[in-house]
């Protein structure tokens, strides 16, 4: 533990303050570089979002959380509630959950195929409804690659949110629902007045674990887009890898890792704090 986790954490922080090659102490220069200086020459500077903030990968992670988090929460809770009462619900749950079990590299392959121009289901569906002009390799274009990877990751992660919510639902006493139906409450009202409030601590857990997952995302980006084209779908974890092990700049790679870890620690600290209050 000490050798493989604690020492590396300390050393990564140390390396992030060193210059490339000679290893002089350069203070916050690496952080300044990755947050404010680094402009990928391939990125279209006319794109205001990336032209103004060169911290493209960080922004992408934030966009990722902004889209991925609400949708997985919504789908996860909806699926858990719906499939609880449906015949064969356990089988459907197992199918939805499969995405969590397969290696993420395979998950990346699965939805890269779904978004393929000729062989992908999405484009075939577009052609069927007469929007064939929009058909393209969704993961390979600058303006759609990030969003198609995010959609794919929602497809993968919804199973996880659903399983946690299903476990949370089992903790709600049946008497509460019986009492509600005796009082003549509608399904809709029962859902908002009983199910959602009773799942509050479950939601807290799902939110935290989802944000951690969204911050650490790496494999599916590597397989589906390689962060491309031109960094358009890069994320922090991928940026760290390409800085440290492809550009061979350990200092800036370490700086990105420290930024990433500070964010995950923030989320974890929030969870621990909230859990102790519940």
């Amino acid at each position, binding site marked *: 533990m000490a050798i*493989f*986790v604690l*020492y*590396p*954490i300390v050393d990564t922080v140390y390396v992030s303050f060193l210059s490339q090659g000679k290893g002089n102490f350069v203070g916050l220069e690496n952080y300044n570089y990755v947050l404010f200086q680094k402009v990928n020459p391939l990125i279209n500077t006319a794109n205001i979002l990336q032209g103004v903030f060169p911290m493209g990968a960080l922004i992408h992670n934030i966009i990722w959380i902004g889209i991925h988090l609400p949708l997985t929460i919504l789908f996860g809770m909806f699926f858990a509630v*719906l499939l609880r*009462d*449906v*015949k*064969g*619900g*356990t*089988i*459907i749950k197992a*199918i*939805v*959950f*499969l995405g969590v*079990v*397969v*290696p*993420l*590299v*395979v998950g990346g*392959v*699965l939805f890269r*195929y*779904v978004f393929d121009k*000729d*062989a992908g289901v999405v484009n*075939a569906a577009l052609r069927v409804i007469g929007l064939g002009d929009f058909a393209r390799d969704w993961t390979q274009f600058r303006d759609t690659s990030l969003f198609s990877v995010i959609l794919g990751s929602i497809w993968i992660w919804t199973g996880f949110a659903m*399983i*946690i919510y*299903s*476990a949370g639902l089992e903790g709600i006493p049946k008497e509460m629902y019986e009492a509600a139906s005796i009082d003549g409450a509608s399904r809709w009202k029962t859902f908002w007045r009983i199910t959602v409030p009773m799942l509050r601590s479950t939601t807290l*857990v799902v939110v935290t674990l989802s944000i*951690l997952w969204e*911050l*650490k995302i*790496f*494999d599916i980006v*590597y*397989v589906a887009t390689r962060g491309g084209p031109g960094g358009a779908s890069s994320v*922090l*974890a991928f940026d*760290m*890898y390409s800085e*440290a*092990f492809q550009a061979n700049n350990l200092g800036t790679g*370490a700086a*990105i*890792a420290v930024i*990433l*870890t500070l964010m*995950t*620690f923030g*989320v*974890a600290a929030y969870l*621990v704090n909230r*859990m102790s209050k519940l």
Partner: protein
Amino acid sequence: MKALILAFLNRIKTSIRAFFNKIRLPTKKPKITSSTILAHVIAWVIATIWLIPFLGVFIASIRPLSEVRFGWWNLQPFTLNFNNYVDAWAGQTTSPLSTAMLNSLIVTIPATFLPIIVSALAAYSFARFRSRTKDILFLVLVLLQTIPQQMVIVPIYTLFSNLSLLNNYVGLILLHTAFGLPWQVLFLRNFFSTLPIEVEEAALVDGASYFKIFRRIVLPLTLPALASLVSLQFVFVWNDFFFALVTILSPSAKLAPQIIPLLIGRYELNFSLLAAGSVLVMILPVAIYVALQRYYVRGLTAGAVKG
């Protein structure tokens, strides 16, 4: 070993049977309202959406590329062959998956059992012996769980290349062990604290040693929890891509998930080959999940619900 495999296959068989038993609808039907019908329709639409990517990859993998180039749903003509599997297994274009999957097993089996043995002993002492540092250590464990792999990889890479542990599975196994320990210790500590302490106290009075109590009384009661840990850790390690990507560089030593990006290639994408490779790489985690589904899900939710 043979008995073990047979028992495993049996487990899969019973799971599959249970799976199909669930499909069979009960004869006595409750009253059907329009909203129940709607719920069922939505549920099966969801199932279809989630199944289509898997179905597509599977169908593409058992047909020649020329037939599926414009969609696996074009079923005319339909030629069933397993050439893609043979190619991926023997490695026509990249390192063979046969070697890579064997390599993955060589890493995954020790990296599954080693941390579980260590964490079982550590968690037991956490749950049973009081000490003041325990709460702080507990907090440290929670925080360690959230460490991204990227945070340790730079020093690990330097350390491994200095100790010539790159391309060496010992380093990777130890790394996975260290990363598995925090959540496993937490999980088992929570589990041990739910076991009644009276039985152990009685055994202590009868003169049993702590180790004997652990081995004879605690361990048998812990088997379901251990099944959860084994299934989860096996799937985590097998699926891991990042640690392998950085520390295993020589082509013949690569692990199964590392072959997938290689199959994508640079220029022309042979999707049928890639699909066959993907099926081969995901088959083991999926089998573990199907066989040990109850333990897998319970492990995941127990860990998550208790934080």
